[in-house]
């Protein structure tokens, strides 16, 4: 099964199980969790089911396209289910069958892995799912997000698409993956990995990024004052990306690092609180009225 067939199959599966098939967010994020379809929607009492691919950027993970397992830009397939269904583990296992992994022919394990995101003020409990010893999915019951304790509880499934594809296609390098039957992953992304590694580690204009961080933060705070949680959150994401860029350039000392993370977290918390307030005023419209 090629890379895009895996994505299409997962989309079909989760669509059939009542998920909104959303699209990737149009702002740089470090993981699918940052997408407002997850970060904001898991807050408050309204039910929510969505699935989407999220291109994720982790500037410090770049390896100039030389390491077969590491990328500064990769793809996650994200499913968010709120409230978490009782049979979510079974659903997940069925989804694996859909992409050609029959759980009865493998050793599949749910191995403890608690998750925490200091930038999002979020934490959860769950597992990494092992397929014959390889981690293929993060499976997390969110307990708090944006500093708020959650009820009902959402469950997040994050499929590591490249890992899964490497397993299915029996490839030892991510760049050898068949994206389609004619185009390799490396043909799409090797150059971007080389260029962005150079940019992130060597060339990024730190002064510009420091300036952007400040501006994004200010704009986010202004939007919060104006009761505009979605725009405010966009700027929170942008400031988070600016921080990641500066981090990759080693422009931030370890002492300052904690301070910057705290500033992003403070924005995320304010966005979360404002979002809840706005939804409450709107009468939590996604709750089905009897």
């Amino acid at each position, binding site marked *: 099964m090629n890379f895009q067939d895996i994505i299409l199959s997962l989309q079909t599966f989760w669509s059939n199980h009542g998920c909104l098939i959303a699209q990737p967010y149009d702002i740089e994020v470090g993981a699918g969790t940052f997408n407002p379809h997850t970060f904001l929607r898991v807050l408050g009492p309204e039910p929510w089911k969505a699935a989407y691919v999220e291109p994720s950027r982790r500037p410090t993970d770049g390896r100039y396209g030389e*390491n077969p397992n590491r990328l500064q830009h990769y793809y996650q397939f994200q499913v968010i289910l709120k409230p978490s269904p009782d049979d979510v583990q079974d659903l997940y296992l069925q989804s694996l069958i859909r992409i050609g992994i029959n*759980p009865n022919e493998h*050793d599949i394990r749910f191995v403890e892995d608690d998750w925490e995101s200091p930038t999002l003020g979020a934490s959860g409990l769950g597992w990494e799912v092992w397929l014959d010893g390889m981690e293929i999915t993060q499976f997390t019951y969110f307990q708090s997000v944006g500093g708020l304790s959650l009820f009902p509880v959402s469950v997040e499934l994050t499929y590591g698409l490249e890992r899964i594809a490497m397993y299915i296609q029996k490839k030892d390098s991510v760049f050898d993956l068949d994206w389609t039957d004619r185009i390799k992953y490396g043909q799409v992304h090797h150059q971007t990995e080389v260029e962005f590694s150079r940019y992130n580690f060597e060339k990024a204009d730190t002064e510009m990024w420091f300036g952007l961080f400040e501006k994004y933060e200010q704009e986010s705070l202004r939007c919060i004052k104006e009761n505009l949680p979605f725009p405010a959150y966009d700027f929170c994401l942008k400031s988070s990306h600016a921080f990641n860029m500066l981090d990759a350039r080693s422009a931030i000392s370890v002492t300052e690092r904690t301070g910057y993370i705290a500033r992003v977290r403070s924005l995320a918390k304010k966005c979360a609180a404002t979002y809840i307030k706005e939804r409450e005023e709107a009468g939590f419209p996604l709750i089905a009225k009897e």
Partner: protein
Amino acid sequence: MPDLLLEIGTEEIPAGYIQSGLKQMREAMQSLLQGERIGFKGINTYGSPRRLSILVTGMATSQMDADVEVLGPPKAAAYDKQGNPTKAAEGFAKSQGAVVENLKIKTTPKGEYLCVEKHIKGKAAIEVLRKNLPGLITNIYFPKSMRWGTKEIRFARPIRWILALFDSEVIPFEIDGISSDRITYGHRFLAPSPITISHPKEYVSAMEKAFVIVDIDKRKEIIAAGIAEEAQKQRGMEEGFSYDINADLLDEVACLVEYPVVLRGGFDEKYLSLPQDVVITSMCEHQRYFPVINNDTLLPYFLVVANTSQSPDIVREGNERVLRARLSDAAFFWDSDRKVSLDERVEQQKKVVWQEKVGTLYEKTQRIVEVAERIAEELNRIGKTAPLDIKGVQRAAWLCKADLLTEMVYEFPTLQGIMGYHYASSAGETENVAMAVKEHYLPKSFDGDVPETLMGAIISIADKIDSIVACFHVGLIPTGSEDPYALRRQAQGIINIILKQDLPLNLLWLIASSEQSNQILGFMKQRLEYALINRGFMADTVNAVLEADFSFPTDALLRATALEEIRKMPDIEPLSISFKRVMNILKSAPLVKAEEVNESTLKEESEHKLYRSICEIRGTVEALVAKADYLEALSILAGLRGDIDSFFDKVMVMVEDPELRRNRLSLLNEIATLFLKVADLSMLRQADMSASLKF
């Protein structure tokens, strides 16, 4: 006699929570049944990632009957002046289903009260269980617990079913919408259909049929046997083959599977050129594989414990692929890390904060170098240890944290120090230096192994004493259970190293002139106390020794050994009583300043006698103390007992005459000074007291 079975069915619980959860269930069940007067024969617990179970055998069908006294209103309120029962008395009788005539008066420490004696008929056991099992389940404590869906309860992971049987009957109850039943589930993939259990006795075998070995010890046996079997197959090919079953890993792996199957995989021999520690860590820590070792040499195989017997070839191949990726990462780090020199790594530490209020890692390294050098020079000066190469000590101290900035240690934090050793060796540093870099992290736990080399010991002490002094300096002082920088463990490490390596180091000298000297010394004293008690000395022996002096741990150890030995003699106890009198008088009337005894002022014969005895032995005792022969010193001191006792019998110390009083106090002070060279015997508990404490 009926059996009870309770199984909490869950999504996969963390391996580390299972044993503790089962232990709590066992204890809670025991106290529940005892408290509720329900007899039982035995309790077994079973567990796996998807279930925590308890089986109670030979239970009584109901509670035992009980005779109880129920207290009512005070007597004064129960009868009027004429002695007739009041409304209060009648009300109480009625509420207890008794008649007023049968009420009794009970005298309690608070006064006299009305009382009714009742015979309570035991309730059916199943009824008691129905009420109490929900609480037993929800009260299990886990280090982290969670909520799920729309439920209010918390547990380690979501509860998906509850099986509760009393013999063949379901014990009916509900927890937040989850109802108890007789249904359970077998192996997630090998036996996915629901299973009905009709009687607790069937449980273990029914689960085994459904590919779940519920007994944790049995799973461990199966894994150990599987490893041995795979080893056996290998032995035909290679002589001297052995395998190493790491006990912690076995415990963990046994709690990660329900149906263990041991498979052997292999990896490319080219990875054997990596440091063995790296390969083993990749296997054990990340993948939970057991390494295969032949005469201390790693073989290119691994043993993985799968949770299924299906498709062993696919499972093996998948695991081989994962390990290949991990090893290729490790090889990549090994090569790229070595492109940067260790001195450059130390330079990089300028950018790393060690502790926000204290400063960078680079500054810490600089301090470690200074302290280590100072210790090494002191040891060379004293000359009791093998001569140290100061340059080597400086170099090892300089490099001791260099590996923290390598990619390998970033990826495998537990390899800190170990990689330091490998990188230093590979960069051509001497074996002594490389070894000291590795060992300076020891001990890793309170009672863990200490460095074996002297240089490693010195760097370790220097690093730890620096952490303690620096943290105390900025107010990061451990309190109660709060000790985020593990300063207690580090202090313990220093003490254990000093004792184990027999280093003649003085704690006061070691912490130098810190503003918090007294606080730190007190902190170190506690660790020394712990170390000595841990070595089996009686607590009061340790107190007596440390009260006299604790600045030289090795010396304290010798004195404790001598005191413990001499305490076997019958004379010591009365001696300690006499010495206590000496110390009590000195404490209540402290001398303005210790003065010489004036011989001409001595009046009574027993005074003269005591003074003569002291003068006779003083020189000998001091000489013995100087060569640390504390046992002999103590036995000579013990000879003073008769003189001290007759002194106290015949002589009054606190007399009116100031000169006489001062002289007698000085005499006592002489005794105290001599004894305190070894121990403060007044700290010894009396035998009758210590005996009574045992009961």
